């Protein structure tokens, strides 16, 4: 059991598509955690992750009637979440140029909290975005290479090499940290 996402009940999905708020709310409850985690790792910021998650579901509600069912629902959802996150990052970048640089940089600090996973998260946050999104989709959200390729609109081969480069980089970074701790 490695975080493989369950697809929504088709009748729930049907009701949500027909605009039934109760059904849509159930979808929100079922999927918000995964959307939020993806958003968090794409933006490296909890506040932005909240905004992106909300934007994602507002878009999902609007576009649900167009969801054709030719990909998994989660794949479709993650593609929307990723777009929202990239939009948000672009907006931040624009603001970043205009506004108080120091403050924004503070906001964009990697999430570093004193928990057991801190090194992993730091290392992950330090990855370039293209490697990070591939490894988050596959290792943290349990997507297959094929579905991740759909979310990222990339060939499967590219996804394969990005995941590998991401893990390789993380292995190095974490190995470094381990060695550092050992020596200390």
């Amino acid at each position, binding site marked *: 059991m490695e975080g493989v996402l369950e697809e929504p009940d*088709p*009748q729930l999905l049907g009701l949500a598509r027909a605009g039934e708020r109760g059904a849509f709310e159930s979808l929100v409850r079922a999927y*918000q955690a995964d959307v939020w985690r993806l958003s968090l790792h794409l933006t490296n910021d909890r506040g932005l992750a*909240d905004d992106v998650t*909300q934007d994602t579901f507002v878009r999902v509600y609007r576009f649900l*009637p167009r969801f054709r069912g030719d990909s998994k629902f989660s794949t479709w959802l993650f593609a929307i979440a990723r777009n929202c996150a990239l939009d948000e990052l672009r907006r931040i970048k624009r603001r970043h140029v205009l506004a108080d640089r120091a403050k924004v940089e503070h906001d964009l600090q990697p999430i570093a909290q004193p928990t057991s996973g801190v090194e992993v998260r730091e290392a992950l946050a330090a990855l370039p975005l293209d490697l990070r999104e591939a490894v988050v989709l596959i290792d943290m959200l349990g997507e297959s290479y094929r579905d991740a390729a759909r979310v990222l609109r990339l060939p499967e081969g590219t996804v394969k090499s990005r995941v*590998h480069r991401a*893990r390789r980089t993380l292995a190095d970074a*974490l190995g470094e940290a381990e060695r550092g701790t050992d020596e200390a």
Partner: protein
Amino acid sequence: MKPELRCDEIRADISAFVDGELRTDRHDEVEDHVASCRSCAAEESSIRSVRKLLRVQAIEDVPDLTHAIMARIPAPKPRAGWTERFRVGAIAAAASALVVFGSTLPFDRDGGDVAAAGEISRLVRDAARSLEAYRARFSIVERGWHPEVPVRRMTARLDFAAPENLRLQLTDRTDYPDAEWPRNDVTLIAASDTWWIREPSSCPEAALPHCASPTTWAGVVETRRVTNREPFDGASPLPTDIIVPLETLAAAEGFEVRERATVAGRAAYRLTLEYRQAVPLVGAIQQGGAWRELHPLDRVDLWIDTETWFPLRFRVVAGDSPDRDWWSTRHGVDDEPGDVLLEVRARGFSEPDGFPPGTFRAPSSGITRDGGFRPAVVSGDLATLDPPGLQLYRSGTAADGSRLVAYASGMSYLKVVRSRGALSPEAAHTGEEISLGSRGVGYYLPATETAGRRLEIRTTRGVLQLHTNLSRATLIDVASQLHLRGRAAPVVVERAGGVSTTRIDPAMAFEQRFAARPTYLPDGYSVVNATVSRAADGVTSVTAYLRRSEGEFDGAGIRLVQAAPVRFLPPSSEEFVEVALGHVRGRWSTERSELEWIDGRFYRAVAVPSADLYTAIRIARGLR
């Protein structure tokens, strides 16, 4: 090959290897190499531990954003969703109150002149009965026929002289990419005993435009003709619902009255209905040629003249039925909910005193079929029926030797056919048994796309069939006045392949120990017939047929099959959509529009050929 190079190549695939994402042969290759190469084995274990670290990451403290999200979701708009439609349908059927919904135009509520749906049905029937002549021009816009021809424009002229003279001329005015494309020019000419059509040869969509190209072969146009046509022949029908939508509006529960409007300066009601209910109307302009597909639950808006009951305008709008996307994919169309797919407007109409000679004379060309009807005077009880408001029209002998008498007035008709044969298989198998009081019983079938409502009566001398576009109630009334005694249909309706099928009382359809009873059915549906089949291997199944009373134009109503003992769903090569039904999984065949599942040791299936998966699920969930 140098060993280092081979190791680099292997390592590039290590992640995919631990993820199980490699093809089998490559997987084995990597596995073998890793087993024998110390440094690659170290690499594999390092990648595996990172992967594991990422996958067992403590779940972050995820906030619950449900309220924030729902606050940003637009409030529900009044919409023609299912519940709304059923509620409205039920009210319309009551026919006593004034029914107005979603009014967008100024509307006077004081006059009490907004007829309820039942009242409109009645007025439309009266108008059809008194219409003698009609002439109109229409403009037609169709969207989404072909990816390279997104919009087509046509015009139509229609002349009609009651009861069976009709000329429909459809002219395609589309600007096609080039001259190769077949034009959708169609001419239909019918008189009482002949029927003639000229239309473009049919062409599979993938073969367009060349398959029927004027430059590649001569068979561009097809001409067919029926001579010695029997009155009101279902195989060569007249598209009269575009004149007065008699069948489309036959059942009050089939449409809703929305608002009053003015169209081309005339007072109109806007009615809404599903495409499956409006098939006779929409199909009237589609007698020949090629047209885009429409979904049974697409919405039709119809503006109907409040004085003449002629359609002034109608349009088909892509619905938002949850499985319409699968349907679209299967039919190669790409619509968004709300897209106007077809729009027809009357550009002028009149009720002329006469027509120029030859208006309804068909050319004598074309592939000809002899309808086999021979006019003759028929005496006896058939000729002395007195259907309300109709006059004797034609009588004679049909191709199979049966005797028939047709009565008509305006567009309305009643045809009585006496034959020596047995009940038709349809009537015997699926017909609704109707009590005719002291006259015994008859077997009733609602109108279909091409044929009228039908009642078959089995007598000692053969079978009497009544065909009509009058209402079901009128049909039963007329049948009750016949001097005969209708006998029950044979109990065994079929015996084939070791399975015998018998008719049972529909009230007993759910009395078998394994048969659950539906607590939800779409508006207007009821169980009209049921059969039990017993197979040699001990499997017993009960089939219930559910229909609406006046018409089932785009399919055969709803069929509910339950059987025991059954452990597995029958194998099939179709593509299915998996559906969760509470704690069990079912499968939905888009091809057959049937939802099947196993409930313990019982097989259950709901077939809804003229609806969608959502309807099937609601019925399935309502089974008790």
